């Protein structure tokens, strides 16, 4: 009896297994259509910085607002270390199943590649989904500074090479790079003083320890609005939406300084994610960037947005990578 029952059971089990195998094969056969079911579980977004900085706050905002467009929650995971290298390496190595996204920040990532040896990822290890943020550099001075225009500042720097103290995030950061590019393209020499982030540059300017500063515009908005600081020029090709009064560098100096230091932040996935999943992600982030609730919240927080689709984003990064090669040696003191 027992024997018999056991036999019957194994027979039944066999059937179940067979059905499961058939089911799995079927699932594979119809897999092109199954992208419509992606995503079926929460997605991880790796932020390569600590839970404090601009990247993290923006990423959490994005995670919150993209959920209805994606149909699944995004969970932010901080993997800080080595100025982003640890986190981006993790994205590059992640399973390309579409359930791990990364938050990229450029030109930071390009600088890491350019300045360090043995970085365990290539720029071609990623698929670029969408750019979300753009934070261009701005030249600011204290309100009672003798420099009334950008030209005043350039003239002084020409007459006194290396005397003008300009503070910025650094060293070897986006804004340090921007300062170096300005020096080269305007033919001037300044004294770049590194601070740990754009934030600490502001009090140093308010306390008049610096002649000028080159922070990201988002860090300087409150003080510019309150007239605690004066903005001389925005290093970008488009006016800043929240403060359209700031002159662009080209209008202020006549030279079209390349805005390579502008910090671009967006979404990437590891190479190997299937094309239809990439399409789902592209669609969701495109919708997010048109979501009025998201735009309103970002404006409220002073997070400057700039949408670039996958093609524009990867092209922008590619051309920046090429251009950076001309300046990388100037950053090595």
């Amino acid at each position, binding site marked *: 009896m027992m024997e018999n029952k056991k036999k019957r059971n194994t027979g039944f089990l066999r059937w179940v297994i067979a059905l499961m195998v058939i089911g799995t094969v079927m699932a594979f056969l119809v897999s092109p259509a199954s992208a419509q079911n992606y995503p079926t579980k929460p997605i991880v977004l790796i932020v390569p910085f*600590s*839970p*404090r900085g*601009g990247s*993290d*706050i923006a990423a*959490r*905002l994005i*995670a*919150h607002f993209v959920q209805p467009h994606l149909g699944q929650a995004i969970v932010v*995971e*901080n*993997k*800080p*270390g*080595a*100025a982003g*290298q*640890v986190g981006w*390496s993790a994205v590059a190595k992640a399973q390309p199943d579409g359930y791990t996204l990364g938050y990229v920040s450029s030109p930071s990532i390009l600088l890491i590649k350019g*300045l360090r*040896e*043995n970085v365990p990822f290539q720029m071609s290890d990623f698929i670029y989904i969408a750019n979300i943020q753009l934070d261009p550099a701005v030249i600011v001075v204290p309100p009672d500074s003798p420099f009334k225009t950008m030209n005043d500042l350039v003239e002084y720097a020409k007459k006194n090479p*290396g*005397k003008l*103290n300009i503070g910025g995030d*650094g*060293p*070897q950061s986006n804004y340090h790079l921007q300062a170096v590019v300005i020096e080269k393209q305007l033919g001037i020499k300044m*004294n770049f*003083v*590194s*601070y*740990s982030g754009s*934030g*600490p540059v*502001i*009090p*140093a300017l*308010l*306390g008049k*320890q*610096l002649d000028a500063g080159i922070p990201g515009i988002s860090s300087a*908005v*409150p*003080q510019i*609005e*309150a007239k*605690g600081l004066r903005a001389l020029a925005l290093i970008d090709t488009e006016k800043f939406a929240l403060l359209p009064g700031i002159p662009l560098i080209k209008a202020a100096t006549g030279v079209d300084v390349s805005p390579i230091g502008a910090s671009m932040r967006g979404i990437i996935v590891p190479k190997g994610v299937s094309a239809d999943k990439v399409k789902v992600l592209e669609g969701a982030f495109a919708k997010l960037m048109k979501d009025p609730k998201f735009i309103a*919240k970002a404006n*409220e*927080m*002073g997070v400057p947005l700039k949408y670039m689709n996958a093609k524009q984003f990867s092209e922008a990064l590619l051309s920046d990578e090429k251009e950076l090669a001309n300046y990388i040696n100037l*950053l*090595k*003191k």
Partner: protein
Amino acid sequence: MLENMLTGLIYTFRWDMLLAVFTGVVGGIVVGVLPGLSTTMGVALLIPITFGMTPAVGLAMLGGMYAASVYSGSISAILLNIPGTSSACATMIDGHPMALKGEAGRAIALATIASSVGGNVSNLCLLFMAPPLALLALKFGALEYFLVAMFGITIIASISEKDLVKGLMSGILGLFVSMIGTHQQTGLQRFTFGIPALYDGINIVVVMIGLYSLPEVIDMLQKQGAEKRVKVRVQGGLFRQMFEYFNYKYIVFRSLVIGVIIGIAPGAGGSLAGFVAYYDAKRTSKHPERFGKGTPEGVLSCETANNAEMGGALIPTLTLGVPGSAVCAVFLGGLMIHGLRPGPQLFTQNPEVIYGFIFSMFLSNLFFVPLGLLTARYGSRLIELPAVILAPTIVTLAVIGTFAINGSIEDTWLMMIMGLVGYILNRCGVPREGLVLGLVLGSMAESELARAILLVHGDVSQLLIQAVTHPIALILVILCLLSLGHAIKTQYIARKAPILPGLEE
């Protein structure tokens, strides 16, 4: 202005505000007690949760988290000799010896009232004197920061009164560890050996957890034979013991001033405030020899100062948009998410929100008192647990806590190495505080000096002139000299009249 304040005050007593403060405080206590979950991380993780709330309610919750976690770091410092948050580092020096004497309840009660008073007084400064005090923050340039760090470093000499050489060894070890990582002005990597985990330098909390908790465990296991390590002595009600605090008015006042001023100077942080206040209490005490062996003054001085630092740090954060500490930097992000632009206009544009927040901070600083006393009543029994239970618990907490900071396994290795270092130092009678101070202040001193020199285009003579002509710099120079002079004097006296072995305690 008074009208705005009143609006804020009334707003604070809405039920949703009270609930938010309470929730924040409970969360803050958990974050503070668990090593590795820092105040900064707690606030950062809470920010997205406050997305859906009205700004005032969201900020009240963040404030509760902030105040309670700065306080409750002291609980694990006292009971387990692990700093729950970095600002509780100085609390361990006397807090844990008190617990070993069986006075954990008393120590926690004192830390509770000290934190509450420190937080509330600094909050009063924030409420009434924010604009003028914020201007003080702007007077701090690279040179001033360098001198603050130097002043902190001179404290190493006074901590190691017994054996100066050992104290300095420990300090130099700390300065060395602070050099590991990427150099602040040139981007050069020092002592990183191509290991990415070392590029950002050594995390201070990782070092503190290893340095203090593991040697404790090793000692505990060596003494395994002893039946019960500690017998908790309960003497009188904890509530009454709390009021013992007010017998030390002089120390309390000085610690408050130290805490608020260090808070205002952006970037210095709570651990430094605690150390300076501790040192100050020891220096001015009639019985400096009791410090380090479990004296209540040691606990209450640094606990008063590290919570007073909080209100101080919020002053430049709210009025100038310049974060006074790492926590405040996150807090700034929180403000901006709620559509408030920190800066000069904040107090006039959104009075009900910002004054509501300040008043809710008073509540936060009061709400943790009953919760703290409950911990003191029941939690202090924790230390009576036999070593076979307590030791693995501490090790587990230390490992998980370290891993939680950055989610990096390398940090846990580092913590264990530091544990070994701490054990060796302890065995040789080298004070571990020197290492901590050296590490906290080393990179600050170095990068600020480099920046100061860069700002005067390498002309060091100009820097020396500035050190005498800038009033704040001059005060700091004098403080450094006084501190050094005091240390030399005590050394001299100790040499001249060596304590006879028989007379020592």
